[in-house]
């Protein structure tokens, strides 16, 4: 079996289209990581008092320098101090940004903006849900951030899921595991790394679909299959070998490309910044007890499952059709279907179930495991509510096994035309 896998890997790897796609995937991953770095921004005043904008690595370094004072645990004292600084500026210049002199803004407000934005998110008008103006939040009230956050979360959930109390219970129980005080370090959480990581995985899914599509169907088309299936191990064992080889090869491409993306972006934004609490990077009232690094690891893990589910689904299609172009069309259509549903769908529960359960349901332009992780979505399953990030990896896991078995069965039973 090992020898067969090695020879099949050699065959697929020798196919020109495979290595062109693999090199393309790696280039794309590197470019996307560099794009994320290039999106970093920092505004300040130069020695002459002129506003300057830094981008890329310069911006990252400047931001790291500027935000050093608020690094570490976000204690109530630190929050109080930030609001005292804000009120000082507010009492002198008012609340409008344009009334604050630029040098004052860049020196006093920019370094504490991250704290102000998070606190503002949890102080909202209960009747309208609109955030209270910052100047109405006293430093003492702001220091009560963690208590207020829990109340705001409970309030939000009870309104959003008034018909599903178990969803509220689940979310609040999970929230109890969120560690306070939060931890903050400028870096990955302040960038678009997570969004682009999802996008990178989505593109890898598409590219590896192209690699997987002809694995069986091209043999049917060329007639090579007639000879193969007359050999001793040319049926079930060959099907398993071809599936395992395709999975190994595409997983290797996934691993190399995702590693390249992560290494480049994390190295630029700082590995230490992965310790930042997720709530400070996305939403203060998020109930997930994770750091930015842990969340991204889950995105990669779920992405790999989605990736493998899509590859296995494509391989299954490949065992069914004689024309690789037909397989490719169907497989790419399947890849894009969750995205189409998320853009054009009505948002009905059944539609969301379908979207999340499709092999590529975990990656897309507007649908992804990452988006589900940072949002507050539950779907009903009979009397219970299921948190949507659980659905994607479970469905993908089932599909990997199911498509693998179906592909072996389908290839073994395939009949020459």
């Amino acid at each position, binding site marked *: 079996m090992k020898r067969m896998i090695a020879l099949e890997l050699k*065959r697929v790897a020798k196919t020109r289209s495979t290595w062109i796609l693999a090199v393309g995937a790696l280039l794309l991953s590197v470019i996307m990581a560099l794009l994320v770095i290039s999106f970093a921004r920092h505004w300040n005043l130069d020695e002459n008092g002129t506003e300057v904008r830094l981008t890329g690595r310069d911006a990252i370094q400047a931001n790291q320098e500027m935000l050093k004072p608020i690094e570490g645990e976000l204690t109530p004292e630190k929050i109080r101090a930030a609001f005292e600084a804000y009120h000082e500026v507010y009492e002198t210049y008012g609340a409008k940004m344009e009334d604050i002199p630029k040098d004052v803004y860049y020196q006093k407000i920019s370094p504490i903006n991250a704290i102000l934005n998070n606190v503002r998110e949890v102080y909202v008008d209960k009747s309208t849900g609109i955030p209270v103006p910052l100047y109405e939040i006293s430093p003492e009230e702001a220091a009560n951030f963690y208590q207020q956050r829990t109340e705001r979360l409970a309030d939000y959930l009870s309104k959003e899921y008034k018909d599903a109390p178990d969803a509220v219970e689940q979310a609040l129980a999970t929230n109890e595991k969120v560690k306070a005080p939060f931890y903050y370090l400028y870096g990955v959480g302040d960038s678009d790394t997570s969004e682009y990581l999802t996008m990178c995985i989505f593109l890898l899914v598409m590219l590896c679909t192209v690699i997987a599509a002809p694995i069986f169907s091209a043999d049917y088309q060329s007639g090579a299959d*007639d*000879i193969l299936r007359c050999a*001793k191990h040319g049926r079930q064992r060959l099907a398993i070998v071809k599936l395992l080889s395709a999975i190994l090869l595409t997983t290797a491409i996934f691993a190399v490309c995702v590693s390249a993306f992560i290494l480049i972006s994390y190295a630029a934004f700082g590995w230490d910044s992965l310790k930042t609490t997720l709530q400070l990077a996305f939403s203060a009232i998020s109930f997930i007890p994770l750091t930015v690094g842990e969340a991204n690891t889950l995105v990669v893990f779920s992405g790999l499952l989605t990736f493998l589910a899509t590859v296995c689904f494509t391989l299954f299609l490949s065992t069914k059709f004689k024309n690789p172009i037909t397989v490719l069309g169907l497989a790419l259509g399947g890849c894009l279907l969750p995205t189409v549903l998320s853009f054009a769908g009505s948002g009905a529960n059944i539609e969301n179930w379908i979207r999340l359960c499709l092999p590529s349901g975990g990656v897309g332009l507007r649908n992804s495991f990452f988006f589900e992780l940072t949002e507050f979505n539950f779907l009903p399953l009979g009397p219970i509510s299921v948190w949507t990030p659980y659905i994607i990896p479970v469905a993908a896991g089932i599909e990997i096994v199911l498509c693998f078995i179906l592909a072996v069965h389908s290839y073994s039973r395939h009949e020459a035309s």
Partner: protein
Amino acid sequence: MELAIHGLTKRYKDKTAVNNVSLTLTPGVWSLLGANGAGKTTLMRMVAGILTPTSGKVQYDGIEIKMLGEAYRDVFGYLPQTFGFYPEFTVADYLQYMASLKGLSKRETNQKIDELLHKLTLADVRNKHIRKLSGGMQRRVGIAQALLNDPDILILDEPTSGLDPGERIRFRNILSEFAQQRIVLISTHIVSDVEYIANRNAIMKDGQIIAVGTTDELVKMMGGKVWQGTIPAEQLHHYERTVRVVTVRNEEGGRVSVRYVSESPGLPDSQTASPRLEDLYLWLFRGEEAVKEDAI
């Protein structure tokens, strides 16, 4: 050892490709002769186990091949009419790949590949991509893969198409040597390829086996039906409409010597000639376009 075909039928929506064929193959070279579309390939694919018959069965030593599964494929070698290969592979890569599928050990593989490449004069191109080889060489690679596991049953569908005369002679010799104690079934519409090496022949027409026998037995059926006569060259066109011409040879004085098959003499001063398998083929396929290949 015997391969028994019992009432094999393959029916498609609008056509019966193979119609109730029964045949028992014993060790030796068997030729399956028939015009294009006679059902030879369909029959062979069913014998190879890659096409399910509508009805009937194939048994190897009394056991249905479907039941034998891997054990049948272990003693089986097959070259289809269209040799599909992996374009990215060199000759050696491809044969290694096929050898692993046939369950050969690494040592056996290297030994067998060397032997076959030498026999089929492919040693010089072992590291060349198959797609870059001539049609004849590709065909020989196809024959090599079929022989890798020293099969007890070897099925070759039009193995000589694309081979030049020298290659065809070499192929015949390899096959004669190989066929000892093995069942070899060769389908072809080129009679001369099998006339001298086939122990037995089966002739197929419209999905049915219409004649089975040794070359001598079959040729006997043509006794008194093969003629030879000499006519002026300008009359050839006229006689071609009345008799089935086998060969034409130019003679001196603007005349041609014509060998033809007919129930009775159709040319003036005709004499009977000793029949050959090719004559029988043309006789049986009188209504169809014959493929004339020069005898080697």
